[in-house]
């Protein structure tokens, strides 16, 4: 069972780093609290929905920012949605960059919007990666016969 112990330690360390480094905030823990035996995959389901939603939004944003005449209201609307959903799952860094992007939209500063959008994409893919790693670790623990530690 040493292997399970190792995996569990890895999981705990990794989870703590996600919060310490600001990738995730308290809202993610709120979601974890809503998970139980009757809904054991709740967090995974919500996050999966978030990933699906985000791909669409990022695609829409990309298209909107490439138009001859950029519709900043439309861009802002997409960013608002993205800010909302990232906030709902606790993806703090993504949410924060979205806030910046919204202010550039308000200024109608295309150059800054485009640069900031790159940052948004970057933060999204980083947190996506991290969350996928987290879920993978959980799966490995369960498959090895262990229980997933509760992170306080």
């Amino acid at each position, binding site marked *: 069972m040493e292997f399970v112990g190792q995996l569990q330690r890895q999981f705990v360390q990794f989870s703590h780093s996600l919060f310490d480094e600001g990738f995730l905030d308290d809202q993610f823990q709120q*979601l974890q609290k809503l998970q139980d035996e009757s809904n054991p995959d709740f967090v995974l389901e919500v996050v999966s929905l978030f990933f699906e939603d985000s791909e669409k939004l990022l695609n829409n944003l990309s298209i909107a920012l490439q138009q001859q005449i950029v519709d900043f209201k439309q861009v802002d609307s997409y960013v608002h*949605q993205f800010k909302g959903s990232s906030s*709902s*799952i606790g993806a703090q860094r993504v949410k924060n960059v979205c806030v910046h992007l919204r202010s550039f939209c308000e200024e109608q500063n295309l150059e800054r919007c485009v640069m900031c959008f790159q940052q948004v994409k970057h933060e999204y893919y980083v947190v996506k990666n991290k969350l996928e790693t987290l879920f993978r670790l959980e799966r490995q623990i369960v498959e090895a016969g262990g229980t997933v530690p509760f992170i306080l």
Partner: protein
Amino acid sequence: MAQEFHVLAVDDSFVDRKVIERLLKVSSCKVTAVESAGRALQYLGLDEERSPVEFDELKVNMIITDYSMPEMTGYDLLKRIKGSKKLREIPVVIMSSEDIQPRVNRCLEEGAEEYLVKPVKLSDVVRLRDFILRQKAHPQTEHNSMKRKSRDESPNAGCSASTSCDHLRPSIPKRRKIVQL
């Protein structure tokens, strides 16, 4: 047997709908989640295109709606509900990621029970449910201290309806509600 507390949740975001649904279920509420104000009106029987289903069967104890939605906002939905004889007694809660005081005031003035800043927490939902259940059991002559914006980051996030949260209350005129005893 106690009747189920039935909440109609309205939000155009997939993610938020899933979360609010779970928050409500964990709080022992029955949930109907819809993705638009239009759908909500259909469900409530206010849609002109359909005749209302037996309303009693659908008895909704609370409506919780996102503010920013395409086509029809939560504010517009609130107005429609408060403008309807059949539905105006149903408490309506507005959720928004934006903490804009004029918007908060407007919603409360229009009759919203509360304005919650997203992300909504379990403690918000439990507090609302308990407050509304208490109101049903003990109707009051004045609509009272729950009418406020809520984004409480203090340790007293679960402050009960009986404590007056003056420090959080926006300065708008209180609505008087006369109950025939």
